[in-house]
């Protein structure tokens, strides 16, 4: 009898132990997700209400209808991620290796714009890049640009806005990875005759990979789902999937379509993440975290 109780207790302990964590996952992840899933399968309208009719057809329908915006979101999101990486790696490198006692000041400078709201920052770009604004207007006045030239309302403006917002999120993880590199490794490489370029290529770069990996993940996921940049800096044909979801949800009260789009976006991102992790290593992610 008592042996059975002991055995029961032993089996029960892991479940009891995971209750807090499990409850967290259930309340903040599984329940909302299941709710979105069930809403996406409903039909109806805002006046008569929506009922669950297991309308799986909505998935192929919305993919068909909004494939352009899906593809565009991934294109803009990944392009901005790549640009942010190319721009911020050297910056993070310089701060980590040559920042000296100004490191924290320099990091603060990178973060400083983020004390202002995202929307305000993007709106400021709208002001700076206006056709007759302080930049383009001046260049046009001195004849460096044709009078019809404009940046706003183009895909380039949207990608630039996304990139701008991504800069610190790319810089910080890379900086942390670079900062953690044991300097003696580099010295050892130098002692063994590696040139400065080889030291970078064969020691620093591989050791900073976890930071790069994390930076790409952070930036790509947020940027692919973004809608503010396209709404403020974009033109008639730069709509991203986030804009469609917002319109369908807020303006049209079309909850099933909005939910289906959100789930498809999430699934696509998960799939992309899985492939990316497979290719570039879970090991490095775990090492990093």
């Amino acid at each position, binding site marked *: 009898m008592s042996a059975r109780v002991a055995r029961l207790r032993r089996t029960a302990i*892991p*479940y009891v*132990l*995971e209750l807090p*964590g*499990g409850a967290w*996952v*259930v309340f903040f*992840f*599984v*329940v909302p*997700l*299941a*709710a979105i*899933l*069930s*809403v996406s399968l*409903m039909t*109806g*309208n*805002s*006046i*008569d*209400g*929506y*009922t*669950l009719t297991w309308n799986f057809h909505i998935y192929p329908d919305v993919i068909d209808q909004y494939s*352009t*915006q899906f593809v565009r979101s991934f294109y803009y999101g990944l392009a901005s991620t790549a640009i942010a990486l190319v721009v911020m790696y050297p910056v993070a490198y310089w701060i980590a290796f040559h920042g000296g006692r100004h490191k924290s000041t320099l990091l603060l400078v990178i973060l400083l714009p983020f004390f202002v709201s995202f929307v305000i920052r993007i709106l400021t770009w*709208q*002001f700076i890049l*206006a*056709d*007759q*604004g302080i930049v383009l*207007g001046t260049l046009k006045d001195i004849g460096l640009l044709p009078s*019809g030239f*404009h940046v*706003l*309302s183009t895909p380039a403006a949207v990608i630039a806005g996304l990139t701008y917002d991504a800069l610190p999120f790319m810089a910080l993880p890379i900086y942390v990875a670079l900062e953690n590199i044991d300097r003696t490794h580099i010295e050892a490489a130098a002692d063994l005759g590696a040139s400065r370029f080889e030291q970078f290529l064969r020691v620093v770069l591989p050791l900073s990979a976890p930071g790069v990996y994390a930076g790409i993940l952070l930036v790509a996921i947020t940027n692919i789902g973004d809608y503010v940049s396209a709404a*403020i800096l*974009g*033109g*008639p*044909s730069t*709509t991203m999937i986030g*804009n*469609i979801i917002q*319109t369908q949800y*807020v*303006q*049209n*009260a079309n*909850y099933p379509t909005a939910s289906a789009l959100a789930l498809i976006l999430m699934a696509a991102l998960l799939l992309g993440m899985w492939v990316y992790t497979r290719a570039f290593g879970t090991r490095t992610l775990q090492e990093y975290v």
Partner: protein
Amino acid sequence: MEADPAFLRGLTQSRFSRRRFVRAGATAAAVAGFGSALSACGIAGTRDTGAPAGFDWASWWARQQKHGVLDWANWPLYIDTSHGSHPSLELFTKQTGIQVNYKPVIQDNASFFSQISPVLQEKQGIGYDLIVITDGWELTQMIANSWLIPLDHSRIPNFARYAGPIARHPVFDPKNRYTVTWQAGITGIGYDPRMTGREITSVKDLWDPAFKGKVGMMSDNTELGSVGMLALGIDPAKSTPADWKRAATLLTKQRDEGIVRQYYDQSYIKALEDGDTWITQAWSGDIFQANYSGFGHLKFVIPKEGGMLWHDNCMIPLHAQNPVDALEWVDFYYQPKIEAMIEDWVNYLCPVPAAQPKIANGLDDPSVANSPLVFPSAADMSRLRGYYDFKGIDDHDEWTSIFDPVIQS
């Protein structure tokens, strides 16, 4: 002393594999998730959540009393403002003892409606006694859901006495049963003559390839669809789904030829001021205000095919706590003297014609009093059209599914 072997084992070996841990968690989560999915197998609609049909509003009004408080939600920059306070509201408080909690919280109809509708659906008050909504799909729903308290016109005699033709019997609310006009306005064309190089007279100028990439259109699908129909010579108020499709085709062509710079919300006025656009769909009051804030060169025109007349309307939402105070303010507002104070600052279409001499003489501001955008001529008025009044949700969904793909491509 010998250590307990079990204790040692516990320190050195993991007793539950990570994988088992995760699997147990996933199972528990899946069960809970499935349960919640089943329980949430519907979202309630708004039908039958309003006042019951045949409710005796007359005796309801007879029971209401003044409380000395008014909670009012309006749009930003939509009342006279001086040094951070509102003179007309202060005068109102002085004369009636009613404290006004004025909240300029309405940024656009759709988002405001999406905020208040879940509350009204639960048959609760939204915390405002007076709200301002434009005629359109949101107002249609407010009326259809019986989410508005019919106005007691015996408490607003100044409306009957002073309201002009603009404010009386609008198509969407004949007899002003639920609403009275706060301000009205015209959707026409705003342009910068220095850039266009010529005067603009027609809706078709929005399709002129000479302005390629410099034409601003509105992202509001009602405004966009309506101007498309004006260009086809169709009266939007009398249009059919077949007309909507023709208009959408015309608008898509305009977009695909690169003529449209962008589909704008309220930010269209900044785009015109900044030179991003040369010609744009525009609201009359915005251009008027721009003229007096450093952009005197901008012009507004009611195109020869017609302009759209819209109304921003005061209404009392169901479950409002201070309906008597709300109507007292509306009555106060409709006095020519008070309306003049506000109109001189707001500059949209004035619902009280008798305010014109007050602005011209009393306030000594002939630029507002003589403006055809504030007090339009009879000839201008005759060219104004009303919006299509949606017959129901299917009607509205069809409109949306035709015009949204033009805007969000």
